[in-house]
């Protein structure tokens, strides 16, 4: 038995069974012969972003992850609970708050029904609140996962847990893992791009797109809608592109002389990186310039050139994935609805935030679909945890709001081999605990990796004497079969 046959046997045992169970099946064994069945090798320094093959046939080629930083309330958007409305204002049952730790709630809180109207939409009959009317209109295109759980209830650790698999700093983010595993399809652009809106970066800061212990070439590159789209991409004042070209020619010639003299291959890598930098000086401003889109397209997204908005970022996300960027991560800040004042409550702030995202989110999904890109682009939308079924009433606040809640929250997935038009998982009648198809953060990560062709247990990097993985060195995670198309 040769090496490749061993590989197939290992794969058939581990993955064929799993994939039958998850309903993918039909994996062509023959195609595996030509693949690196033992996983992506650590990026070689000379070409760390060269395209690489995943463990098995991928359903998606790229990811757009839309993170609503602060965490929107699932109970006011998707997880409709008539019983909670009925018991609005009643004291919270004791058994729900015994031994629970809350960030802000003190004393005995009262249940809070939603102040917003809900209706069922589409063939699938998904419940969506009136705050997201356009999204309700495409309910059959997306999957709602109502059974997400996390074990973190403060923003920074919860965001780190979601994006790096660990609630602590210093670990690589999902986008870094995927660019490490897959490389990039476009060598003129970064493989992992991050954009923020809402005026702030997420609570956990840039660590949520950091590369942790992976080489820094895999960290997310923040593209900005004001100033240089990528830091230092513009030539200095007084230097034209022609002068830059001539100076790069000189750098190349002098480096080549040096390479001849010293024979170090690293010099040739540096020459290549300078040429790539030169191409990025054009390709990055080009892709980031949404003024190149038609007026109807801008209107469709609600985008306005020159502004830093979620709408602009959605349109940019489409432009980036169209050009083969592997992982686009958007962060939108302003969803931390505690109800301490009108700028963080359920009646004023939540509708305002929903209005900001409803149209561009739907434009992104339908635009990708029309361009034939939705099938191979996985879209993930959600916060870092859920919100409580109780009114927070911090210091007796009269504004409605909910505290942080790790025991259930809703995420939305679309495209990239996810089954459209389904609601997956369920919570109890007060929307407090998950009752069906519990999906952990590591499960979500494993599912995302799976759609990109990776077994989350095997995508690893040697660190501190262990094969470190997104789901942790000892983590167990399952891909949820019912979610997959």
């Amino acid at each position, binding site marked *: *038995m040769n090496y490749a046959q061993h590989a197939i*046997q*290992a794969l058939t*045992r*581990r993955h064929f069974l799993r994939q039958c169970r998850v309903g993918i099946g039909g994996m062509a064994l023959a195609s595996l012969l030509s693949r690196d069945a*033992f996983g992506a090798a650590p990026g070689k*320094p000379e070409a*760390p972003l060269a395209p690489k093959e995943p463990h098995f046939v991928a359903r998606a080629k790229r990811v757009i992850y839309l993170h609503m930083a602060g965490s929107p309330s699932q109970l006011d958007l998707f997880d409709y609970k008539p019983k909670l409305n009925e018991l609005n204002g009643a004291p919270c049952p004791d058994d729900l708050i015994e031994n629970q730790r*809350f*960030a802000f709630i003190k004393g005995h809180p009262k249940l809070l029904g939603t102040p917003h109207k809900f209706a069922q939409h589409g063939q699938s009959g998904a419940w969506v609140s009136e705050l997201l009317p356009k999204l309700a209109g495409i309910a059959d295109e997306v999957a709602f996962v109502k059974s997400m759980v996390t074990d973190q209830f*403060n*923003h*920074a650790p919860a965001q780190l847990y979601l994006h790096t698999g660990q609630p602590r*700093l210093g670990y690589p983010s999902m986008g870094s893992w995927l660019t490490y595993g897959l490389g990039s399809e476009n060598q003129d652009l*970064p493989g992992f791009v991050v954009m*923020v809106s809402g005026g*702030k*970066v997420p*609570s*956990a*800061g*840039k*660590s949520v797109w950091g590369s942790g*212990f992976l080489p*820094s*070439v895999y960290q997310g590159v923040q593209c900005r809608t004001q*100033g*240089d789209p*990528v*830091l*230092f991409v513009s*030539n*200095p*004042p*007084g*230097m*034209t592109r022609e002068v830059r070209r*001539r*100076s790069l020619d*000189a*750098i190349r010639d002098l*480096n080549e*002389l*040096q390479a001849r003299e*010293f*024979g*170090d291959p*690293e010099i040739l890598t*540096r020459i290549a*990186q*300078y040429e*790539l*930098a030169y191409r*990025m*000086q054009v390709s990055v401003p080009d892709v980031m310039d949404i003024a190149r889109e038609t007026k109807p397209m801008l209107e469709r997204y609600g985008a306005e050139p020159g502004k830093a908005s979620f709408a602009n970022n959605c349109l940019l996300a489409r432009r980036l994935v169209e050009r083969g960027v592997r992982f686009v991560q958007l962060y939108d800040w302003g969803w931390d609805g505690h109800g301490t004042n009108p700028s963080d409550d359920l009646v004023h702030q939540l509708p305002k935030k929903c209005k900001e995202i409803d149209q561009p989110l739907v434009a992104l999904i339908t635009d990708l679909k029309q361009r034939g890109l939705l099938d191979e682009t996985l879209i993930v939308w959600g916060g870092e945890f859920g919100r409580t079924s109780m009114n927070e009433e911090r210091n007796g606040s009269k504004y409605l709001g909910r505290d*942080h809640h790790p025991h259930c929250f809703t995420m939305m997935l679309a495209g990239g081999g996810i089954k459209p038009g389904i609601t997956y998982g369920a919570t109890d009648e007060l929307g407090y605990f998950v009752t069906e198809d519990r999906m952990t953060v590591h499960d979500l990560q494993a599912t995302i990796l799976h759609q990109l062709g990776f077994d989350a247990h095997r995508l690893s990097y040697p660190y*501190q*004497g*262990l094969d470190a993985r997104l789901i942790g060195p*000892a983590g167990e995670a399952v891909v949820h079969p019912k979610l997959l198309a």
Partner: protein
Amino acid sequence: MKAAVCSCAWIATAVLLFAPVRASEPAQVDFAREIRPLLSSKCFACHGPDENHREAGLRLDQQIGATAELESGSRAIVLGDSGESEMIRRVAEEDPFVRMPPAKSGEPLSADQIDLLTRWVEQGAPWSQHWSYVPPEPPPLPEVAQKKWPRGGIDYFVLARLESDGLAPSPEADRHTLIRRVSLDLTGLPPTPEEVEQFIDDPRPDAYARLVSRLLDSPAYGERWARVWLDLARYADTNGYEKDARRTIWRYRDWVIDGLNRDMPFDQFTIEQLAGDLLPEPSLDQIIATAFHRNTMNNTEGGTDDEEFRVAAVVDRVNTTMQVWMGTTIGCAQCHNHKYDPLTQREYYELFAFFNQTEDSDKDDNRPTFATPTPEQKAQLDELLQRIAQLQSELPDAGEIPGESSSESEGGDAEASEIQKQIEALREQQKNVELPTTPIMRELPADDRRETHIHVRGSFLNLGESVEAGVPSAFAPLPPDIPRDRLALARWLISDDNPLTARVTVNRYWERFFGRGIVETSEDFGAQGEPPSHPELLDWLATQFIEEGWSMKELCRLIVTSSTYRQSSRVTPELLEKDPQNRLYARGPRFRLEAEAVRDQALAVGGLLSSKMYGPSVMPPQPPGVWQIVYSGESWETSKGEDKYRRGLYTFWRRTSPYPAMTVFDATSREVCTVRRIRTNTPLQALVTLNDPAFVEAAQALARRIFAHSGEDVQAGIQHAYLRVLSRPPRAEEAKRVAELFASELAHYKADLQAAAKMAGSEIGPPPEEMPVDVLAAWTVVGNVLLNLDETLTKD
């Protein structure tokens, strides 16, 4: 354990594999180098030191367990008999349901690995303790053929290995290369053209040794090596986590610089940082030193549990201490017994107990803190005190109260109250001196100690058995009858019985000079780490280090004066094929400079670099919008004057948003201890050195220096530019290419004087009138090119 049925295919494979091996008398297998790492990576997770997750009762990290009769009646290893050894049968098994390791644990062993294990068992399966747990002994110098080459111990070990591999060392690098290499290594700065000329022209036989001494004595030495230590100390100017608010802890950074410059021995350096507060009558500096372990993060996000993050800080202290001194990654034992190294979860919390008795408890103000005057403030305060004392002595008798005395002393009264006023004014000045505070370690009082428990599955909410402070049993015990506190732990780390501290330290130094450690995994000397490429060299250096009184400067001197270090880095295709990573040192080191050195060098060659040392961290210009932080009004307030151009290690370090031009060059966020920065080579780095205003300004300043030196003489200008940037004259071909560039850019800017004025720059001050802007602009382009050469970014 299910007995495996030997299949025909297996027999066939075995015959094929072993027949030729038996025929050719295989070499002795080295357990420490070849077998333990293999067993560790493939088997220890289920058959290792962790008894809670041990499968089938089999333990492979010790001979006694590996050869014992198992539940199934078989033995994993029968000494000298691979055919009877169940382990050999199972790793070679073809049925994936029977084969070891099981598919879910990883890939099957390769034919070579199976062969290696088989030969080892056949040779009687000799065992030895993990190499790094045996204290180093000074090894004898090996015999070498090329007797003239070695200058010292290092060279004997390196040459012996080269000769056994049929390789020869490279010739010594030329003096231009040497002075640049050793200046960058020891001070993080390039030499000035004057220093280069002086060294080139120095006919004395000990010219190089003198150069090394000068560099080690330079204050820049302490700054350069503090940079290295601060990565280990996870030093930063903010608390980390969500709010990531500012903290004042720069006195600790200055303590490190100062300690290194004074060549504080590493053992004392260790004790003061881990337990300076517990020394008898500690000095102010010894208390500041304890901020080493107050560099842990502090969570001030609303709604967080202080105890949770106090525990996280203590965990970080345990992990960092073991990482920095013992090269041991112990973090996993926080939740369960270590799967690869002999460390139990209980032992983890015994170490935790050492650090669990300090006052700090994740409070927003980082208390306890310690206010101490800087040396300048101390001088100022001393002077005030002296003046106050002087004035007080001029007052009438201390017993007399002004106003109560008899009428004849009325004039005296007026005088006294005048003096009194002056004293009060001075006291006011004294009060107004704002002393910087530093978070410090302070032990809880004896009646308020914490009890330490095992945290079940690592959760601080789930407390198990209580434990006392202690050190892992795999190492020498603490002396009896001493208090089991941080001071005891610090002394244990640098004791003669500790097999790791000296090895780990010299290896980190070696890594800085040669780009890779003798143990490549400088963060892990355990079973999962790489074995050393030159074990005897490592032990020789470690014992030498201790013998030289733990002097870090002497260690540096030992390395940089070796023939090994002084080789040319030129590489032949043959050498590149035989040893692409230069693990054998048949050539000198050649690798990219660190982030801070890339910046410092550019500013230095442009003459912009400030030599100001110490003090609060500075904020050199960074693009607007880089800091966008939640729940915080903090903003980047660009420093003024020379503070714009300080050395990189003084740059304000915000953990959630470190200085972009440095992170692009692999600087870390300093959230946790980092032993080695992984070097990358990316287009974003090119964008920084091409376009970041700091680098453009350096090129503009360099242009003015060139013109000031050479005027209209272009060839002289090119010579000077090369000497400034690369410490060597250009080769003819290079000078020709640069002259072409200068000519084309001069023509370009002559035709567009407005662009020329921009390119020549005004941020560093308007160009002097005698310097034509078109010429300056052309030199700026040349300077920008030179600052971006691979050779410039590389220590060669």
